[in-house]
């Protein structure tokens, strides 16, 4: 990959007195899908939150699409085109599907080289996720886990992101929906959108990712192509859920 969308260097983060991340460095190229792998508590979510500006205590350099975003407010980072899909979904339960989508709305945007990023509308998203299309007026609090997972992805897409931080999208949802999410990722990749995906096991990551980073106890243990990781049983045994 020639153009870097995201470059993270020496990222450290803490909750209170507990340091969680130690000198994380990673890169995501344009149109690339990169998996951030590790077991429960390895620090995947914390890494994403720190990139998104959601960790109050973090240091290091984060460059997104040519902008230094370390220390910036989450809304400023989001407005540069970084999308965040949280693992706990954080759907607004009082708001309907359409209203949830509206909260995520941002103007169309371009990559720094002037190429237009894909533009998402409610219609497109409801077509992409037909389950949501069937319940546009249902409050978010009265949807199944899988439907909420689709909604949270769709809500982030409403911001027309250049890169998406996708935190464990396959966790606890039915196989059909996992498949739908995998297809979406592939579609997004085709449209030039980059994705940093967190995952615990290789099976889903293998379907969609180009490269992988492996985390353990807040430190980077391994990185390489997804194919290499899929073949490397030792690394998988040591750091992942097999």
């Amino acid at each position, binding site marked *: 990959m020639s153009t870097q969308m995201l470059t993270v260097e020496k990222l450290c983060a803490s909750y*209170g*007195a507990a340091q969680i991340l130690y000198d994380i460095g990673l890169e995501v190229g344009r149109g690339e899908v990169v998996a951030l792998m590790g077991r429960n508590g390895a620090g995947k979510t914390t890494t994403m939150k720190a990139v*998104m500006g*959601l960790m*109050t205590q973090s240091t290091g350099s984060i460059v997104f699409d040519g902008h230094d975003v370390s220390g910036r*407010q*989450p*809304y400023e980072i*989001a*407005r540069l085109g970084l999308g*965040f899909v*949280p693992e706990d979904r*954080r759907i*607004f*339960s*009082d*708001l309907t599907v359409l*209203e*949830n989508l*509206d*909260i*995520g709305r*941002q103007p169309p945007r371009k990559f720094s080289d002037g190429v237009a990023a894909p533009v998402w509308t409610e219609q497109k998203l409801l077509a992409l996720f037909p389950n949501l299309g069937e319940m546009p007026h249902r409050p978010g609090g009265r949807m199944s886990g899988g439907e909420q997972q689709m909604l949270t992805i769709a*809500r*982030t897409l409403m*911001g027309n992101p250049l890169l998406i931080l996708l935190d464990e999208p396959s966790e606890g949802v039915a196989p059909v929906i996992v498949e739908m999410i995998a297809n979406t990722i592939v579609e997004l990749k085709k449209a030039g959108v980059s994705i940093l995906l967190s995952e615990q096991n290789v099976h889903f990551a293998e379907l969609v990712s180009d490269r992988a980073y492996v985390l353990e106890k807040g430190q980077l243990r391994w990185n390489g192509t997804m194919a290499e990781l899929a073949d490397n049983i030792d690394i998988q045994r040591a750091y992942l859920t097999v």
Partner: protein
Amino acid sequence: MNLNAFVFQAVNGLSSASGLFLVAVGLSLIFGVTRIVNIAHGSLYMLGTYIAYSVATKLGGALGFWGGIVLTAILVGILGAIIEVLLLRRIYRAPELFQLLATFALVLVFNDAALWIWGPEDLLGPRAPGLTGSIELLGRRLPTYDIFLIVVGPAVLLLLHMALSKTRFGRLMRAATQDREMVGALGVNQAMLFTGVFALGAMLAGLGGALQIAREPATLTTDLNVIGDAFVVVVVGGMGSITGAYVAAVLIAEVKALCIALGIVDFGLFTVNFSKMTLVAEFLVMAIVLITRPYGLLGREQGAVRSVAEPEEPLRPATTATKIGGLIVLFVLIAMPLIAQGSPYTLVLGIDVLIAILFAASLHFIMGPGGMHSFGHAAYFGLGAYGAALLVKWFAAPMGVALAAAPLVALMGALLFGWFAVRLSGVYLAMLTLAFAQIVWAAVFQWETLTGGSNGVLGVWPSAPFESRPAFYYLTLALAALGVFLIRRFLFAPFGYAMRAGRDSPLRAEAIGLDVKRIHWLAFAIAGCICGVAGGLFAFAKGSISPETIAVSRSIDGLVMVLLGGLQTLSGPIVGASVFAVLQDSVMRSTEYWRALLGGVILLLVLAFPAGIVGGLAKLFARRKAAS
């Protein structure tokens, strides 16, 4: 009671409900989005009454009145936006209690600003042009303006509902009420949202105030009266729920109307004047709702705001240096009557300061280590003070007996109220404790035959051997020192550790076998008991006690003292109480506008020392140490 009178009062209640709703709904919306309890909301309402009065009288006519109402709402809305941008925006990351303190400082500032601009007299506005008549209802006259007000409430409710669902700003507000961090991560600038919601809430309060000028005069006591009512409505209706705010406003207004309609009822053995029970009834309703539905009628549990504050430092046993420092202070205090022989006033102030220390230290005990933010500590002060004073009044009890009774009376109150309070947490606990304190206050105020009502109890002077000022000073010093010492002992005993464990992680504490509720209940009782001593001493120090001295402002004074000193140090409340008492005393004597000055000082302190005075200094030293 006759039925007609009741129906008439019920209709009347509906028109009061509208005003109550307007101010409460703004408070509720602001809390929902920003999680700030804006104590200054009643002040915005009060400013609304004054501004509308001025416009209506200066401009005159229908334009002056009706145009004035619209103009007032806009002006107060702008004021709300300014408050948010200049003050609150700087303290969103400060602990919740600091935000309360800051908005309380605004109450003081606005009250004096109104005094300065409009003077101390009540100002009665003109009657509403076009709505000066009245209709006949059940043999009584009901002003048409009241009917107009009855319609205003539901109309505003409907408009707000539409705005919240049909506009993007409204949708953002609803989303932010649930999870404002996520709203930010989706690219929404929270600062704009917060300013907007503050402006909206302030505008509604200003509108509510402006609409009142045709019914009631503008007065300087409106701010705290209205905020008290508004809290009750918001808590009963459920924080953040606008329909809940309306339902609760109607409920509260109707309960009051019912009390007035009932009037004096003869129960055979005794008679009760219900029309004097409106305050008790109001807070009783709130207490019942909080106990049975802790999140209000239509509210739901608020997602905890993800903590952004730095972790709390654990309490540390006193170092040798602290102990020596404490002893030096104690010696100076003991020598005080000798040092201050020339100025007898020093001892008067000294007694005030010592009582304040005891009051603040007992409040700190449950607030800091206990994590229970009581907004009604005045209740136990009042129970102690009245317990002692009434014994003197009715049984001519000697001071020793009366002073011994003070903590016992307070202890009983604290055991009763605490049992309910520890079942709640956060803002809800704060509001329930406030409700209990208001019940005590209202009972004292309205039960004239026993307590002397607003005149209070007079002639409570110390008896031998403590009649002389220095002797009473030593007694106060001894009791204050004992109280502070006892609190320290409790905190570093297993009980104190259990109490803090219960504060920091109730679930884990329960898991290791601690009965967190019971421990916090006991702590509440201990704090009440010690506070009762302060109340008893106060009665004897002043020679009298009146409802005014145990009103909500005393609870707030206590909060200010504790927060000034800082929550997480044991010397905090002592320093905070001393600074506050001396400041209040010297400021009060030097200017008519002491409230504004005090408010200004509090604002400066909040902005400069978000960890309290002692906490701030401790941090400064820690940084020095780390640097060297």
